[in-house]
């Protein structure tokens, strides 16, 4: 079956260059300015609260002896998960030769990088003394050398997240070099010319370079694909390798990876529905793109629903008292309401995407993506909180409520995320021009064959 055209109308290469370059050489609009100020305010709130909790200590959080992990790790898993869609779009869809990804991969990768930055904040501040964060790396030290514990999934996380961030950043930048050259050749003003000139590394469009460049992109995609799967697998092992009922299950790695893709695509939808409207990119990020994303959300959402059911079945079938209790407590215990939100948002809501009307109406998709984002945050909260609050010993049972500091820090990470994203759309080409151009060029070729 043939896909509908990947971009709307007959765009020439020149129009494409001009359309994508325009925001970089014009003054921002009102919508952007308001959005940026709101994001900046949230970021400032986050920065001041992080400073406060570093000064006073982790006692400003709602944690207690029973519940030593709560908001921070929930937010960490939430943000890392969001990042996964970017890599999926840029790497896995490249390997599968899905050409529709070309209009959205740049912004999705940007989202990945900013989301991983947000995620990394939480383990850092939870250390209490973040200036000693370098202790997580194995370096010769005056304490022995006492090496880090390579058997701990938390350490695996350190390596997974830092590798993921580094490789994503490099992949993003490499993919941008030809476009930075395009921007360089069109930049107005000396400062812009110098910066884009520096970043584009003297790219001249030589085909000898292009040929190697394509090989490099394929190799990086091939490396990023197992990497992205390993990252959320390792994140899930933070839980799965423990002996806590509800965590100690082998379904966790695939369940987390699919959940990550699900939440990431929801965030991509949230961002793109706004971006295409505000930046006037409807021609390049079409309804067709949104529909393709919606289909991924539908598939992954259904797999997530299946995983929830599998967990329940396994708990029942295991005959293990503690496992059964953990899941009963999850549904009807003190945090039962969070389970209800989770099921509503992640299992029921995506099923509406079976309707084409739903998949092709940006406003409806936007609402749906927000619901899924909320649901996926609650999924992590449910997993972490229900298992910790009711452990083996009833005398140590406890409840947890986030404090203002924790909620404010979480809002602060949204501030960081959107501040970065809004700056990105102003200073870097938001659509991968050279990739879309190759589609337009080939498209033209096909037309001339027909005539």
């Amino acid at each position, binding site marked *: 079956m043939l896909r509908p055209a990947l971009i709307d109308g007959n765009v020439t*290469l*020149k129009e494409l*260059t001009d359309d994508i370059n325009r925001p970089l050489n014009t003054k921002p609009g009102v919508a952007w300015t308001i959005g940026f100020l709101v994001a900046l305010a949230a970021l400032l709130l986050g920065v001041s609260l992080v400073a406060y909790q570093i000064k006073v200590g982790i006692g400003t959080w709602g944690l207690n002896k029973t519940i030593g992990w709560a908001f921070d790790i929930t937010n960490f898993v939430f943000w890392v998960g969001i990042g996964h869609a970017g890599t999926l779009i840029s790497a896995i869809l490249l390997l599968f030769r899905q050409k529709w990804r070309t209009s959205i991969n740049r912004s999705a990768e940007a989202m990945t990088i900013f989301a991983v930055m947000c995620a990394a904040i939480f383990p850092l501040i939870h250390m209490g003394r973040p200036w000693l964060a370098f202790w997580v790396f*194995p370096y010769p030290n005056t304490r*022995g*050398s*006492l*090496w880090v*514990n*390579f*058997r701990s*999934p938390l*350490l*695996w996380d350190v*390596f*997974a997240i830092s*590798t993921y961030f*580094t*490789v994503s950043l*490099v*992949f993003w930048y*490499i993919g941008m*070099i*030809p476009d930075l*050259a*395009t921007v*360089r*050749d*069109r930049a107005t003003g000396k400062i812009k010319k110098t910066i884009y000139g*520096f970043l*584009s*590394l*003297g*790219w*001249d*469009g*030589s*085909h*000898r*370079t*292009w*040929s*190697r*460049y394509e*090989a*490099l992109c394929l*190799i*990086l995609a091939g*490396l990023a694909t*197992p*990497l992205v799967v*390993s990252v959320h697998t390792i994140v899930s*092992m933070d839980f799965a390798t423990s002996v806590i009922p509800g965590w100690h299950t082998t379904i966790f790695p695939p369940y987390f990876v699919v959940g990550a893709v699900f939440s990431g695509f929801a965030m991509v939808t949230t961002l793109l529905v706004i971006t295409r409207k505000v930046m006037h990119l409807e021609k390049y990020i079409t309804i067709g793109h949104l529909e393709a994303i919606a289909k991924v959300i539908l598939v992954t959402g259904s797999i997530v629903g299946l995983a929830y059911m599998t967990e329940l079945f396994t708990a029942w079938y295991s005959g293990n008292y503690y496992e059964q209790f953990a899941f009963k407590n999850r549904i009807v215990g003190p945090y039962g309401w969070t389970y209800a939100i989770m099921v509503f948002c992640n299992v029921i809501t995506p099923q509406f995407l079976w309707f084409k009307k739903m998949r092709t109406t940006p406003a409806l998709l936007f609402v749906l993506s927000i619901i899924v984002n909320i649901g996926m945050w609650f999924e992590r909260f449910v997993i972490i909180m229900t298992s910790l609050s009711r452990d083996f010993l009833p005398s140590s049972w406890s409840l947890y409520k986030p404090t203002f500091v924790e909620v404010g820090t979480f809002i602060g990470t949204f501030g960081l995320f959107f501040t970065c994203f809004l700056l990105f759309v102003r200073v870097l080409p938001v659509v991968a021009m*050279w*990739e879309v*151009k*190759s589609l337009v*060029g080939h498209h*033209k*070729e096909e037309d001339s064959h027909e005539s």
Partner: protein
Amino acid sequence: MSHNNFARVKDFLLGLYDDEQRMVAAVKTLRAAGFAIYDVYTPYAVHSLDGAMGLKRSRLGIVTFIAGLTGLILSLTFQFWTNVIDWHVNIGGKPDNSTLAFIPVSFEITILFGALTTVAAFFVRSRLFPKKETLVLDPAITDDRFVIALQKVDGSFNEKKAHGLLVASGAVHIAEKSVIT
């Protein structure tokens, strides 16, 4: 093909095209007529050019493999050395050499080494670096023009014939350019 030449000034005959297909056909015609293509400058990667220009497959994959393998061996050795030889710590009674538990870190380091080294090799091989002066043959290359560059090698370059072939193959513009290397 090496870009290196003892001459400090390189003279080029450039054919500008506004269509991918015509440009690829022109490359084939020029090569068939015995002209060496110095390079082709394009706004995006044109896959059929690899064959038309007779380029060999990139060997970057070999770099990735060697670097990845190095990362794997180094990280496994390092974890073994720290846990078994340098300072073994009893953690939950697990064996000092918990090879399976060393796999995730080794996996990540393999990918990290592979990715970074390949990128570095690409930069070196393609001579891309910050502050490099761009060989801007035409700013329209990063927009919508395809440029075939033929180097006017002293004595052996039949300029008239080349010019004729460029025109016949549908070049929208023909220019001459000297680049100081």
